[in-house]
């Protein structure tokens, strides 16, 4: 459902842009997480995990598609592709070749609020990786000869991810309807007609403005310690000149919303209809205390899996739905989104699903959730923190995405306690306040020639 990230090549298992799993800074058996800042402003986070001789190295820039100038959609993602085109010191493809010949992995991805580049290598290769990555932080050289074919590549990427899929096309237009003013209404990959016009100059302008050590976070996880990383960072990233100070990331904010909107798409490739309903809701960065946590638990209780209300009521008990669930996109600088979805099975109609989904939301808004439901949802979140420590790159992503969307390490550390503190009353209040049909967007995906009933 959540389609907000574009990578140079698909990365299995790392799909959702706003997903955030958070863990205590000092979990059992693994080293303490440490952080420091270089003189040029680069923030560094080191997450020791010495179980295997592997290091995950990620540079996160505090810039994403929501920072683009209107009319230049897709430039953040286009630049991400162009970052592989070489510098004065290293020709195009050299970095990738060096990574490949030591058996390393690499990739990059772009979202609304951040752009990140990563490599996974053996610890001995970390100095090489840091040398190359710091070199392209300010040293990228772009020519029209490399820009033109790469623009064709991202046009193909757009066709393959969006135009090829009715569901993806609809999701884009739901977001464009949901956000009436926020740049989150523009797809991360960009609109086709605007991508087609992006050129070298657009890329260079964007790069010069945003790519600098004082606008980036370096996250190194794996078989290293903080002292080693510090020494290497000083001799690589430390040599990169600080960029001009950037103004605060203040984007156009959502106005008050007063309407229920519908977005309907029919397509001959669709044979079973489906719906999704979305609301603009606060994010972890701009919510009142405890509200984002309450939205997280609301999404879990309402539609977070096979024990959720939507699944149990619609799929198991009444048997009208083939699928149904809910999600909260809360890891963003500006207002996030809350969504529910479902599709019918058997003789049921899409309007039956819509009524039933609305009824489940209404029950929580008026009667709240039980103590048992809340306890189970909390425990599932807390358990996921322990499991999260098992993935080195997953840990690096938690820290990188938090620190580039306005959060800090203290927030990550405090998250379990804040989840534990959420009351049933807060969950009910979040549903009543935010999941209001009168200011929602409902998207329908229908077979050709059908209507919603």
């Amino acid at each position: 459902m959540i389609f907000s990230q574009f990578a140079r090549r698909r990365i299995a298992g790392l799909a959702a842009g706003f997903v955030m799993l958070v863990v205590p800074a000092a979990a059992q058996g693994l080293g303490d997480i440490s952080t420091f800042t270089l003189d040029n402003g680069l923030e560094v986070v080191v997450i020791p995990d010495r179980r295997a001789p592997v290091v995950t190295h990620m540079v996160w820039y505090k810039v994403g598609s929501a920072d683009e100038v209107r009319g230049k959609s897709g430039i953040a993602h286009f630049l991400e592709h162009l970052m592989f085109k070489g510098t004065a010191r290293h020709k195009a493809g050299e970095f990738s070749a060096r990574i490949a010949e030591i058996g390393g992995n690499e990739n990059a991805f772009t979202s609304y609020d951040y752009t990140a580049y990563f490599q996974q290598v053996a610890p001995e290769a970390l100095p090489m990786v840091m040398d190359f990555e710091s070199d392209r932080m300010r040293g990228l050289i772009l020519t029209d000869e490399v820009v033109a074919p790469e623009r064709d590549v991202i046009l193909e990427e757009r066709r393959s991810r969006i135009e090829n899929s009715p569901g993806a096309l609809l999701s884009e237009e739901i977001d464009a309807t949901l956000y009436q003013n926020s740049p989150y209404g523009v797809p991360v990959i960009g609109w086709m007609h605007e991508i087609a016009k992006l050129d070298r100059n657009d890329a260079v302008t964007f790069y010069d403005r945003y790519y600098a050590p004082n606008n980036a976070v370096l996250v190194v996880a794996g078989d290293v310690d903080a002292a080693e990383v510090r020494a290497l960072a000083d001799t690589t990233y430390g040599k990169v000149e600080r960029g001009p100070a950037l103004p605060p990331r203040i984007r156009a904010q959502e106005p008050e919303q007063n309407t229920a909107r519908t977005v309907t798409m029919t397509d001959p490739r669709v044979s079973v209809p489906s719906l999704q309903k979305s609301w603009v809701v606060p994010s972890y960065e701009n919510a009142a205390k405890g509200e984002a946590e309450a939205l997280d638990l609301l999404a879990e209780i309402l539609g977070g899996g096979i024990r959720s209300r939507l699944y149990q009521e619609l799929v198991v008990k009444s048997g009208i739905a083939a699928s149904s669930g809910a999600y909260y996109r809360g890891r963003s600088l500006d207002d996030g989104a809350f969504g529910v979805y479902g599709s019918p099975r058997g003789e049921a109609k899409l309007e039956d699903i819509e009524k039933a989904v609305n009824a489940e939301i209404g029950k929580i808004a008026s009667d709240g959730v039980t103590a048992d439901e809340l306890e189970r949802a909390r425990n599932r979140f807390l358990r996921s923190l322990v499991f999260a420590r098992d993935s080195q790159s997953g840990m690096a992503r938690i820290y990188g995405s938090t620190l580039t969307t306005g959060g800090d390490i203290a927030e990550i550390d405090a998250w379990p306690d804040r989840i534990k503190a959420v009351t049933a009353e807060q969950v009910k209040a979040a549903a009543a306040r935010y999941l209001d049909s009168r200011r929602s967007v409902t998207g329908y995906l229908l077979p050709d020639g059908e209507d919603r009933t």
Partner: protein
Amino acid sequence: MSRRNDMHERPVGRLAQTGLAFFFAFYFLALSALAPARAAQIQEVTSDSGVTAWLVEDYSVPIIAIRFILEGGTTQDPQGKEGLVNLMSGLFDEGAGDLDADAFQLALDDAGAEMGFSAGVDGMSGSMRMLAEKRDDAFALLKLAVTSPRFDQAPIDRIRAQIVAGIVASSRDPERAAEIAFSQALYGDHPYARRREGTAETLATVTADDLRTAHRRMFARERLHVGVVGAIDAETLKKHLDELFGSLPEKAELTPVPYIRPRLGQEVRIDYPLPQTSIQLAYPGVERKDPRFFAAYLMNHVLGGGTFTSRLFNEVREKRGLAYGIGSDLSNRRHSSALVMGTGTNSERAQETLSVIRDVVKRMAEEGPTEAELESAKRYLVGSYAINNLNSSGAIANTLVQLQVEELGIDYIDRRAGLINAVTRDEAAEAAKLLLSADPAVLILGPGSKNGD
């Protein structure tokens, strides 16, 4: 901050495999090189009743991951009851022993465990991830699921309806249609040509007794492979192995599946007005146990493996911008092998893309890789093991199981780099000639692609 709900994945969600994915349903490609990693001190553990598991003990994170495969898979679907094994995979958390679906799922949640089953073409795999402190409760539930699933009528009907809804939902999806057409063209009346999820008609014939019979025939100790990683020692594991699998019958009663060579030298064209044309090519493969396997594996890596370095990547994407995704892989199923390539390209340039691919293949068939390319491929494939296969407990457990399925031996990790490094350029060139001189099977899905063009 939402969690990923991997443990709630339903079998119906896995139907929409596209592209190359269907070649790798269970026998995922050849394993990458194993590095002598600290994390991979593999112990062979045999319980009192004779159940064997491979164990990597690791106490860094207080969790345990277990994964196992029972050979058989969807090839065991009786004629006319296609989809039975896939349906079964959706029923293991829908009631077992004295616990009905509700009670079982609540108990699993209380135990803090995540359980999953999945039906591949060649085997049924199961997995569980648990908190070490709740090990006893978690293993007890897994034992119930493995040895005494209830197959109650209500869950059967519900999961079947969900799967049918998925089949209907993809019935007008041209990518799914192309996938079905291509596997029928390649495999004729072999079980690999059948739809893994069955059809509405075949699923309607499946009864609870059919499921019990299939379970009894497939769930046996003889063709069981188990991998365990995490905070558990060998003695403790032995007890749990007896508990989990000790009561299963010794011998499986599997329907023999013949070996099949995919039918090459044919074109399947499907005309559909899509913005992008999908192209797939299938060439002969090489058996995992063939002494020429590593020569072919290295050659394929140069041709279309890796991330941003292969010949296909450079010619199709980097130089010409014809596609976003392009690659090739060796597919090694238990009863068939192939070398497959795939890409999605601008429909107006599909013929150009196909001819570029065929030129790259022709040159590789005639000349083989260069010495330098072969050396790079060796370094990549030797070095990448730890990163690709040891990056989480689940990944390691999966690797332990695959090593057993492919009968590579517990010392394979230590031998593998030697096997790769021993391949000469002549051997790689010979493998290229052997596989790539053949006239391939070609699938072209896109506008204006008609058979007989």
